């Protein structure tokens, strides 16, 4: 192998004339530690078994070569019998080569070169406390919204809360959120290229997408698909309102658990997921109105919004709502009055979904009558746990979306369906289902958008959610006859404390765990070939 690097040469005492003290353990072992531990990425031979061998003694050997050089003393560590040999060895240094006839025994371990190419934790990036806490707010938000949903269900189930008020308030909040979102999008859209038609045209011929997209994805997909990705990603935020509902209702029609796609072209019932090509539709499809398919309505509503959000994506450096929606037709020719049309169609599909749900509620009510409640509680617990664990918290505009993100939404909607089927009256069932769509389908999109929009909104939302969840749990656990608000406030305080403790504690724990990280890399690892002609594929 290569001669010892400079670092290791420096580890060997340079002045060979310095009398070396008689080698005892205290002088030999720390020598390696002193020299090698200077660079933590190098192990000395002792490291391999240090925890297990408390004693390792080198007696007062090397009496003959005791005043030789450091190198010689090291070699003397192995072979010290006759000084004539060690003198001979002064010229021949140990080399990590197999073809050379070494003058060392086969089990000789050269302290200078042994494990010199070992790398420990070369790619480890240390965590900082506050960024970690800040990142954990996303999880807290989601857990809190799940808790709020459960609290609302319990409230409705115990008939302490009127289902109408729950769904009324939540629908009002959703409407306000939609208005806010719409306002944001409208505000951002002039940042781009001015005329929406021009923008749409640019997107269509692909050059725009090349400009707006990170370059590395260009080779991976066809041009159309790129366009689609760019547009669908934004569209999901634009029109999740109707689409989420539509997909759910669509699924309910088919009477099986939701299969995630918030938005799905009607001609693809199997539904691709992610940024797949499931949205490769002919442009005309967007206008095809199929009464039976709610989804196609949704997609019709969505398609014109393609234009504006793609600028959003560009302007705020990839806000990418990375949502569960994926497929959307290729940008349809923008209608003359862009935003107003979008709003109108969104409202239209919302109303459609509303009535579809209303019609479905009686069916849902008796869906699981033959199943015992215990099974339903257990099932919904696991489904909500799946929702929490598989939720796509990244929210970033990376091409590597979590492949199981759809699982999360599906699980949540299924949980809400089975929970709703426990409720006695049609109105309650309807309220809970609509509420679940709002909480699990639309709210995450809004949260992600708010986070990218402004950090302040994000924090405010987090605090609100924590307070709401804490207060709700407090009220539910509190005595029914007493004054619920006192318990609610207590719950809020406790909720805030728990959230703060969990965020801080988990972050601190994770940082503390980093010291156990020990990735070992060395020449024995299979090399990663760098192949030019394949690079485009491999990166993706």
């Amino acid at each position, binding site marked *: 192998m290569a001669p010892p690097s400079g670092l290791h040469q420096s580890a060997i005492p340079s002045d060979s004339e310095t009398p070396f003290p008689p080698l005892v353990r205290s002088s030999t072992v720390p020598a390696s530690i002193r020299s090698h531990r200077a660079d933590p990425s190098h192990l000395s031979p002792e490291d391999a*078994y240090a925890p297990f061998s408390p004693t390792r003694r080198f007696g007062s*050997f090397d009496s003959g070569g005791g005043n030789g050089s450091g190198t010689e003393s090291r070699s003397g560590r192995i072979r*010290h*019998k006759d000084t004539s040999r060690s003198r001979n060895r002064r010229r021949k240094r140990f080399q990590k080569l197999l073809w050379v006839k070494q003058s060392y025994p086969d089990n000789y371990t050269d302290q200078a070169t042994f494990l010199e190419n070992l790398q420990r934790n070369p790619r480890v990036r240390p965590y900082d406390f506050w960024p970690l806490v800040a990142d954990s707010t996303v999880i807290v938000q989601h857990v809190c919204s799940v808790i709020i949903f459960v609290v609302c269900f319990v409230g409705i189930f115990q008939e302490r809360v009127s289902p109408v008020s729950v769904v009324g308030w939540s629908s009002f909040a959703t409407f306000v959120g939609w208005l806010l979102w719409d306002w944001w999008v409208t505000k951002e859209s002039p940042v781009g290229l001015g005329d929406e038609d021009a923008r749409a045209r640019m997107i269509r011929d692909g050059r725009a997408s090349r400009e707006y997209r990170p370059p590395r994805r260009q080779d991976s997909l066809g041009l159309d698909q790129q366009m689609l990705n760019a547009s669908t990603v934004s569209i999901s935020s634009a029109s999740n309102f109707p689409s989420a509902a539509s997909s759910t209702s669509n699924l309910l029609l088919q009477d099986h658990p939701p299969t995630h796609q918030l938005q799905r072209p009607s001609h693809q019932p199997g539904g691709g997921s992610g940024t797949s090509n499931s949205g490769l539709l002919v442009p005309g499809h967007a206008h095809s109105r199929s009464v039976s398919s709610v989804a196609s309505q949704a997609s019709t509503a969505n398609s014109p919004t393609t234009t504006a959000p793609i600028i959003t994506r560009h302007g705020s450096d990839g806000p990418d709502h990375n949502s569960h929606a994926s497929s959307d037709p290729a940008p349809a020719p923008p209608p003359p009055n862009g935003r107003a049309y979008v709003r109108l169609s969104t409202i239209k599909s919302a109303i459609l979904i509303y009535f579809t749900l209303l019609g479905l509620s009686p069916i849902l009510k008796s869906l699981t009558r033959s199943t015992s409640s215990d099974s339903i509680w257990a099932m919904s617990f696991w489904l909500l746990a799946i929702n929490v664990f598989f939720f796509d918290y990244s929210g970033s505009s990376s091409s590597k979306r979590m492949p199981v993100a759809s699982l999360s939404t599906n699980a949540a909607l299924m949980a809400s369906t089975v929970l709703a089927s426990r409720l006695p009256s049609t109105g309650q069932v309807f309220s809970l289902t609509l509420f679940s769509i709002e909480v699990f389908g639309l709210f995450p999109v809004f949260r992600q958008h708010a986070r990218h929009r402004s950090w302040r909104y994000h924090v405010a939302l987090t605090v609100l959610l924590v307070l709401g969840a804490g207060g709700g749990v407090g009220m539910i656990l509190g005595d029914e006859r007493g004054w619920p608000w006192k318990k609610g406030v207590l719950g809020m305080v406790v909720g805030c404390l728990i959230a703060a403790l969990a965020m801080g504690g988990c972050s601190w724990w994770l940082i503390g765990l980093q010291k156990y990280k020990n*990735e070992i890399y*060395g*020449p024995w*690892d299979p090399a990663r070939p760098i192949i030019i002609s394949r690079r485009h594929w491999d990166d993706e």
Partner: protein
Amino acid sequence: MAPTYNIAMVSDFFFPQPGGVESHIYQLSSKLRDRGHKVIIITHAYKGRTGVRYLTNGLKVYHVPFFVLYRSASFPTVFSFFPIFRNIVIRERINIVHGHASLSSLCHEAILHARTMGLRTVYTDHSLFGFADAASIFANKLLKFSLSDVDHVICVSHTCKENTVLRASLDPLMVSVIPNAVVAENFKPLDYNEPLPRSFAPHHPPPARPLGPHDMITIVVISRLFYNKGTDLLTAAIPRILQNHPHTRFIIAGDGPKAIDLEQMIEQNVLQDRVEMLGPIRHEEVRDVMVRGHIYLHPSLTEAFGTVIVEAASCGLYVVCTQVGGIPEVLPSHMTVFAKPEEDDLVAATGRAIAALRANKVRTELFHEQVKSMYSWTNVAMRTERVYNGISGAISEAEFYGYDAASGAGSWSATRGRSGVQSFALIDRLKRYYGCGIWAGKLFCLCVIVDYLIFLALELWFPRDKIDICPDWPRKERKVDGNDAG
């Protein structure tokens, strides 16, 4: 008079299966026999090959029958090998059990049982493992288990030694580096006075030496076409090399899942007349293919030793290889051109090699003699014998491990297997296993205790004196060699 030993080589991998480990075991065994030792080989039964067989040189092979079925599942068979193993060991009066290859469960079990029976054990590691993926973690834990109580470990290269020391938490002083070797007589360069081997088709003239400026340079690749052999690199590099150098051609031998990629590349670039794919070849034919070329290209991504590049150099080929694993240790720099495992660098390195050959700067005709003096199985056997001497106490501990035994004799070291000090007492062995991990340590201890109980039961049920001692094949006289440095 140096002592002679009865050695049992244990490995899942042996003839009739071809491969590097297999030939290593065979060559080492026959050279050890030449040095006066008795060697038997224990492997599992192959199809159509069961029972006891004798190979050339009186080498006795036990094909243990019941391992064919359970070969992949190693844990359930931890103890089931013990009765027949004990029988063989007692019949053959074995002193030293030598296991080969880290993926061989037979080898690990044999080491465990041998220690229980109070035999000395040696283990030879032929491969490199990473630390990241789940399979490696499992394999490494298993290795740690079986090597907790081994007397000595042999690795085929320094990189392999570092790897094994880290994987099994061994004391580096109990790991020796003894390389593989080649049978130089089987890899002679082309003798132009002899008739050409059959592999030369009439339209392929033998390689021209010395090279003129417009003579064809042939680059040979012999490798199984797998991902970890770097076939992707090869596929990417071949068109560029052929484009840069007009008078060159490739001969590729070997088969594997990546062969289809190569064929596709050939068709896409219309290189049918410049790249010849021979398909799978037998080990005996390797030399005949090698001597058709000037350059041997070895694009592997990981390699513990890389015997094939030594074989190529022995055939008088200039070697271009990737600088991975133990490969940089194997050949001197005047025989090799190293490349990083990158397409660009591989193309550049091949270009340098072609240029050096065209300039007639490389004395490839001398390679054979040089390789012959570097690597020989006799030397390997001699060095292995020193390991046997060391662990069985024939040479003193101080000489073997290189420091004063007197100071170490009073203390007990958990990891250091050492003649005279390493005791076979169950409690000492348990101490060694206990350090393997919080849970694993206890589990391993349990296994060892069960193993010991089985041993006691076997002693009761099948007493030693009821087992026949088999007559030895007449031993060879130990060859007297002056350079037995030990």
